[in-house]
């Protein structure tokens, strides 16, 4: 692990956010999508800023990234630092450690309320709020959260040194969790309800390990234990049998839920709650854009989120130049 993970954006103050009366583009979310959007928007000359609870987004939850063009292998947080460094060099103001509480459509502008009481106005808005770990929704999961059940491998792996842990999931993030945990856990059992979806290159690494057991086509039914979890109950779809697996930890890596609640009543979303956007990343509300993991785009990847962010910024610029019209009296709200 990297010895020092300084977050550069910790130097940015909120003063710009008091000064600007109306922004051209405000970006909610400082993950790959939001950071790349800021880069493109600033270069186009827009007055833009980023508001985000945490900078780097899910990049901080992943150890190794080996599929971002130009980097054969880079730690997630290093890639995040590279992104932030680049954005900082353009002096885009970043307002960190705050949550956006609500968004109001004021035609044609947007009003954004933050949890520190600040209210901001912007001509266009980008939702780059990403996702949060999906829950299994099985009995015991909530009760044993942080009592064995974890959603963050880089945070919690050290507590499972020489223990037996289960990883639920079969995609790339599950595969990466397995590889991370293999340095700590004595044994890892994978439980996944269908077949692997992870990249072959990761699976090859997993099958080369000698402390991993894999149960595919196996549904996780329940987490049980006493004060801490002691195991899980599963259903093997092939043999049609239930069985229990004793384990001290369960890492759940079954994908993401979109963080779209801020706009769910404003824009069109799909049944999964993902924001529906057109080919220019615009939602069903003119001037309101979305990019990255929060959208209906199927492949949740850094490079794709970043690219969507760029597209959104360019499209917002075009919208501001061609379509956007200030309120009839031209006055600021």
């Amino acid at each position: 692990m990297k010895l020092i993970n300084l977050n550069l954006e910790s130097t940015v103050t909120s003063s710009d956010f008091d000064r600007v009366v109306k922004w051209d583009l405000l970006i909610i979310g400082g993950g790959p999508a939001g950071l790349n959007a800021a880069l493109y928007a600033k270069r186009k000359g827009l007055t833009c800023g980023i508001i985000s609870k945490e900078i780097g987004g899910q990049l901080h939850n992943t150890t190794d990234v080996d599929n971002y063009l130009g980097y054969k292998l880079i730690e997630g947080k290093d890639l995040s630092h590279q992104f932030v460094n680049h954005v900082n060099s353009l002096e885009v103001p970043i307002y960190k450690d705050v949550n956006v509480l609500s968004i109001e459509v004021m035609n044609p502008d947007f009003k954004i309320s933050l949890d520190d009481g600040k209210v901001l106005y912007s001509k266009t808005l980008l939702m780059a709020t990403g996702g949060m770990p999906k829950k299994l929704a099985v009995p015991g999961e909530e009760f044993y959260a942080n009592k064995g059940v974890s959603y963050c491998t880089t945070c919690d792996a050290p507590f499972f040194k020489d223990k037996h842990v289960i990883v639920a999931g079969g995609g790339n993030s599950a595969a990466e969790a397995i590889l991370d945990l293999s340095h700590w856990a004595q044994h890892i059992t994978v439980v996944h309800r269908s077949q692997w979806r992870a990249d072959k290159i990761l699976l090859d690494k997993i099958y080369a390990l000698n402390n991993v057991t894999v149960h595919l086509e196996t549904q996780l039914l329940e987490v049980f234990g006493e004060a801490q979890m002691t195991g899980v109950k599963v259903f093997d779809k092939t043999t049609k049998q239930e069985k229990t697996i004793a384990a001290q930890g369960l890492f759940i890596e079954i994908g993401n839920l979109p963080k779209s609640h801020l706009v769910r009543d404003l824009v069109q979303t799909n049944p999964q709650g993902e924001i529906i956007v057109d080919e220019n990343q615009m939602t069903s509300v003119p001037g309101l854009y979305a990019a990255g993991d929060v959208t209906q785009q199927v492949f949740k990847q850094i490079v794709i989120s970043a690219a969507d962010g760029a597209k959104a910024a360019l499209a917002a610029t075009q919208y501001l130049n061609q379509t956007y019209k200030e309120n009839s009296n031209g006055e600021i709200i």
Partner: protein
Amino acid sequence: MAKLFNEEVQKQLKEILAQTQEKITLVLFTKEGSCPTCSETKQLLEEVTELSDNIDLELKDLERDQSLAKQYGVTLTPSFVILNAKGEYKGVKFNGIPAGHEINSFVSALLEMSGMTPKFQENIVKRIEKINQPVNIKVFVTLGCPHCPGAVQNAHRLAMLNENIEGEMIEAQTFAELSNKFNVSGVPKIVINDKYEFVGNQPIETYLEQIENM
């Protein structure tokens, strides 16, 4: 010995620490004999001290400087506190090395102790000021945890704003026994007065609710 901070980090830290306004003092307690991460912590603090004229470092020994340790409630090693310009202990303590992601809560504590007071909404400040019973907040962290510095920062901010509150970071791997005692298997885990607990990087209101309902 190789530096903990590479040149780039050094440069960045120096710029950040240029924002310190008043002199502050780090008082580090280590001990002789087996003391995991003591030498690394000492090195980290020494390297930080070199980057700013506003930061002083005092090195103490838990056994030889017992009475001072008692005054700051230090029982573990390595452990350090940050004193304000008047040399007062405000309840800001780190147990274990604040490296990895935790460098961020360390830097923020340095800045805020030296005069860069964070802005809170007035009603929050009022609620903090009202707390009139002793409150100890332990925040268990791991160095690979991106959500942990925020939790430590909250605990320290509460401590800086009210004399009755002490906030301490505890690096869970170095103090495995203590972590076991509090059943820590997910971080950040926050334990108030050794009794009330919650997990995750929660807003400062969650801390206040917990404290107000004790």
